[in-house]
């Protein structure tokens, strides 16, 4: 009952957030200068063509009415049609989402094990050269602009060594792994340090916890204490951070997608913003928001599974 209720509560909190997002997004778009009809038709279009398009898109209706029309469609699962491509937005999102999704999962698969190992090493050998080395690398990794790194890696691994493809998404699972390797590494290099620092700090914090002393007093081996007690407790804050990072990742791949020519959501959004393709921006924003909320929810449920105190 309590867990179900807790879940229900979280889900009901979701609705106003999504509604708020749609309102803010809509308002923001109203404020952006630039008439989508003109931008899409280009500078050579006649005023008549622009007017015809505005009329077709309903851009001359009052903002509130536009919003209501839009939302009533959204509720029926219709995110409208892209102004420039004249293709359903949902189709575009579904086409682009797998790339970003695969990339996000790839980054997680690369970053989490490495971050775990480095975080544990740094905490275990705190104050030694191992710790200092990991720390220096972390600082460097966090500081390196993603696009800068991406360009360097492209030159080295794709052109000079020819190990990895420059661009695209590839065919099949292995193809995806191969094509997305460099993009995933570019993001991981930034993400691993964030996780390592957090994990190291929580392990250090947990390893002086009272229950560790109690475990030693019981004669448990250090290894057992570390794996069964410290790591589990230390994983909680890192898990929460991880949720935030994954949410960030979904929207934070714009530059990487740009540099590696990946047809993902970031690129779709980038083009839509520059091209004033309102339906895409709105649809994607709702999609992003939904993804963020779902990820947060999953993180919460996961920490609930680890930590019995969460939903008491």
């Amino acid at each position: 009952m309590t867990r179900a209720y807790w879940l229900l509560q979280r889900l009901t909190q979701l609705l106003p957030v999504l509604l708020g997002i749609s309102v803010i997004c809509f308002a923001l778009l109203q404020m952006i200068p630039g008439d989508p009809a003109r931008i899409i038709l280009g500078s050579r279009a006649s005023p008549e063509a622009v007017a015809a398009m505005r009329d077709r898109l309903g851009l001359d209706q009052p903002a509130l009415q536009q919003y209501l029309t839009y939302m009533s469609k959204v509720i029926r699962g219709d995110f409208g049609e892209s102004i420039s491509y004249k293709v359903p937005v949902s189709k575009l999102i579904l086409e682009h989402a797998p790339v970003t999704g695969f990339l996000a999962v790839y980054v997680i698969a690369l970053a989490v094990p490495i971050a775990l190992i480095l975080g544990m090493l740094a905490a275990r050998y705190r104050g030694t050269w191992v710790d200092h080395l990991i720390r220096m690398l972390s600082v460097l990794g966090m500081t390196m602009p993603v696009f800068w790194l991406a360009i360097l890696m492209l030159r080295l691994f794709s052109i000079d060594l020819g190990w990895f493809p420059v661009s695209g998404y590839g065919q099949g699972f292995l193809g995806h792994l191969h094509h997305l390797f460099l993009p995933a590494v570019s993001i991981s290099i930034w993400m691993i340090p964030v996780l390592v620092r957090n994990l190291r700090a929580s392990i250090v914090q947990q390893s002086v916890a009272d229950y560790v002393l109690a475990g030693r007093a019981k004669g448990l081996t250090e290894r057992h204490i570390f794996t069964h007690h410290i790591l589990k407790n230390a994983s909680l804050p890192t898990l929460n951070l991880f949720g935030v990072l994954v949410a960030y990742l979904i929207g934070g791949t714009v530059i990487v997608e740009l540099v590696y020519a990946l047809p993902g959501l970031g690129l779709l959004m980038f083009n839509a913003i520059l091209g004033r393709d309102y339906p895409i921006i709105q649809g994607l924003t709702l999609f992003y928001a939904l993804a963020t909320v779902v990820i947060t929810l999953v993180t919460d449920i996961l920490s609930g599974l680890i930590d019995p105190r969460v939903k008491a």
Partner: protein
Amino acid sequence: MSEQVIEMTSRPGVQADELPLNLKIGMAVVIAWVLLAVLAPWVTPADPNALDLDNVLQPPGAAGLMGTDQVGRDVFTRVVFAARIDLWIGFAGVVLPLLIGVTAGLFSGYFGGAADALLMRVVDITLAFPFFVLVLAIVAALGPGVGNLIIALALVGWVSYARLVRAEVMVIRNAEYIQAVRTLGFNRFYILFRHVMPNAMAPVIVYAMTDMLLVILAGAGLGFIGLGVQPPTAEWGAMIADGQPYIEEAWWISLFPGLAAISFGIGLSLIGDGLARMLRVSN
């Protein structure tokens, strides 16, 4: 009165005489950049925006410490002058959201109630937007430029501070020393700003260092996709982007601003680390 032997305890507190090493190094790097930025006109040999079309793409050496760019401007001069802009973006892009966020978080956390619930929804909503996408959208809406970039960063960034401060305040407001000053009959706002706020700031300051790095990287990222500062302003990200078409023949145009950004970022990271250690905050 034997108990009046002074016991040094291990409670949190700033001990000025034992600054962590990484903090010292970080401060040195950041202060060096601040000095360079302030003294830019006196430490650089040229006008950062002066074109010399007869001396374009000259390699480092005779034509200048870091060579010249595609319109003959001195790269070293521009790297130094760019520090002014990047440091300003980092500073204002953190201070503005910090001020908004801290104020919102203080009131929301301390007074609670409907305003708090509303604020938290606003925070949820803002956080549901991807950071970079939102900044990108706002900059696209307002037009590129340092001022608009800072506005965009403030509009997006304040929520992190609000959440952080709110969480701290919710703990602090139940601390006995807050109860104690309440029983002394002080004005609520006085208590909030004199007692609650100073004690809630440690994690904020530590986060601000990380945030400054994030802000500078975001600014550089926008510069990279061409929506950063207005030309001819020198800015590291924009300089890196400007140098891209010339990477084969004039690597120095992009490399030096890149190194500058990285060195400043390292300085910030080290300060963040050091402060976290000194203030005993886990970031």
